[in-house]
């Protein structure tokens, strides 16, 4: 760990990524993802890494895919539209069992479903981590690379404009310039001519026409792997004051920080309100949400969208408490996801109106 510095979210995440071992990054500018790309372009050469200003998001994710096959930790990212373009690859990278970190610097919270439902074609999911502020983003970026390597799967870090542009004091881990360990499945060309050259494919391995080449078996193995992540990845959640709460409010990401703060203030003013903030959006911390909400008369969900995570909260609570959606889309003129309604008094008012 190095000294504590005042650092903008984008730069903090870039530094955390390089410190976590990221050696390849490719991206295409789009607010509020752009600064992350710029910082990666500045930082990666310091550790002999590569940053590509790709010609499009399609190519950015393709380049990251290629880099990932060499066993080096690779990352890419974008914002809404760019993520939509990348989905075809993200789905296939999942089936190719490659580690990859995807920084989704979203505009608002309208992309919750895209992030947590797989987003592209096929029956898959990604691990999704949603930090509420800069210190947490540094931690979760490290965790994202660890999980990507451990599970050999894409892991998404879901941020937004607020996160990208807030400065906070954090200890940024220093870079480890030692050559990273390359996993045994990685390609470097060297098994060519051996009679058993490696292959990295979303369609699985094996020699066509011979035993071991079976698309059905590969897809079954992919499904089993998703299932293993669903049960094996530890769900993370931040919750407070739920024990004696009459109302429990759920929210995630930067907006979750606003909601949490509103709840802290309401508690100070004597209102029996608690909060739950899922940190892993997939796997969703259903059990913890269920437990946190079960003692209260009512649950509410605040999101900067028309209501997406509310479905997961309803599935988690299984009808044991009424779940009310109290958020809504909120956009300022910039379209970057700054919400005029995303402020503590307005949120507090909605919470108070919902109190049983």
């Amino acid at each position, binding site marked *: 760990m190095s000294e504590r510095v005042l650092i903008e979210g984008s730069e903090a995440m870039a530094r955390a990524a390089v410190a976590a071992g990221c050696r390849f990054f490719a991206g295409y500018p789009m607010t509020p993802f752009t600064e992350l790309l710029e910082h990666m372009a500045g930082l990666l050469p310091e550790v002999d890494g590569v940053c590509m200003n790709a010609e499009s998001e399609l190519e950015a994710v393709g380049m990251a895919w*290629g880099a990932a096959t060499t066993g080096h930790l690779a990352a890419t990212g974008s914002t809404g539209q760019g993520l939509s373009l990348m989905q075809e690859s993200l789905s296939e990278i999942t089936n190719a069992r490659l580690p990859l970190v995807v920084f989704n610097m979203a505009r608002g919270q309208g992309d919750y479903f895209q992030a947590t439902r797989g987003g592209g074609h096929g029956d898959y999911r990604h691990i999704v981590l949603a930090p509420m502020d800069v210190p947490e983003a540094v931690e979760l970026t490290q965790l994202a690379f660890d999980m990507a390597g451990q599970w050999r799967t894409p892991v998404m870090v879901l941020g937004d404009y607020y996160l990208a542009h807030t400065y906070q004091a954090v200890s940024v881990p220093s870079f480890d310039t030692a050559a990273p360990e390359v996993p045994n499945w990685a390609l470097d060309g060297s098994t060519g001519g051996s009679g058993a050259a490696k292959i990295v494919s979303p369609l699985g391995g094996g020699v066509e026409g011979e035993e071991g080449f079976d698309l059905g078996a590969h897809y079954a193995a992919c499904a089993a792997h998703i299932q293993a992540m669903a049960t094996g990845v530890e769900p993370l959640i931040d919750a407070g004051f739920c024990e004696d709460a009459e109302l429990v409010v759920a929210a995630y990401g930067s907006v979750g920080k606003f909601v949490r703060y509103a709840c802290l203030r309401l508690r100070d003013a004597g209102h029996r309100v608690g909060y739950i903030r899922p940190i892993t959006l997939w796997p969703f911390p259903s059990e913890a949400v269920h437990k946190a909400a079960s003692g209260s008369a009512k649950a509410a969900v605040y999101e900067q969208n028309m209501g997406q995570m509310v479905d997961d909260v309803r599935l988690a609570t299984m009808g044991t408490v009424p779940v009310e959606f109290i958020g809504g889309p909120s956009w300022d003129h910039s379209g970057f996801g700054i919400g005029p309604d995303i402020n503590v008094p307005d949120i507090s008012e909605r919470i108070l109106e919902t109190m049983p």
Partner: protein
Amino acid sequence: MSDDRLFLSTDKPPAEPASLVDDFTPGLITQANHHLCPGCGEPIAIRAAMEAAEELALAERTVAVFGIGCYTAFAHNLDVEVVQALHGRAPSVATGIKRMLPEGFVVTFQGDGDMVNEGLQEVLHAAARGENITCLLLNNGVFGETGGQMTTTTTLGQRTKTSIEGRNPHQHGHPILLSDLTATMDGAAYVARCAVNNAGNVARTKRYITRAYESQMAGAGFSLVEILTMCPTGWFVDTLEGPEYLQNTLAPVHNIGELKTP
């Protein structure tokens, strides 16, 4: 698998004992039992590409990136390391690999539907960047795998399932001559077009591919070899008519020869 020509060329019993297909299989192709159609030109092109790699002793540093088309079947048939990419997206995947393995040798296998339709920007951007990779375009002028529809390289007048009366420029636009286009780009070091419809052209194909590989190994920049391949199935012609159809339909438009050398 059988080769009709063996039976047509003679009516006498064979003078030598039968030899297995495996005997002719180049070292870097693991088995000859591919699922491509009889008379398909793609296995010939892939064979030339693998023989060239073997002769230049590139096997132990090669990563081949496959697009999506009939040739994809070979992704599981090679004794070099392979990355299976998406339809059209092999050049960017190859870019990521090459940037992380600068000493490696990286080659893509793509069809015309893959490279010139779905992924046109990828190959052009890689060329403009001077990306030090080799892209091989197996151009048969149709989407073979999906059953013979028109691609951007289909020539005027050529009949496909989606240009039934022949490609008509007013309705279907004009073909893209990818190698000619790429040869104009500063980042491209070596660009050549060849075909596999007769023995002379097959030899030329291997020669051009070899030059492209050498140019990559010399660090010269982007290289592209476009190989015109037969697709009797997608062209709806007899197996034996494939080579001649190629000569009369594709070759007059997509001209054979080296377009750019380092």
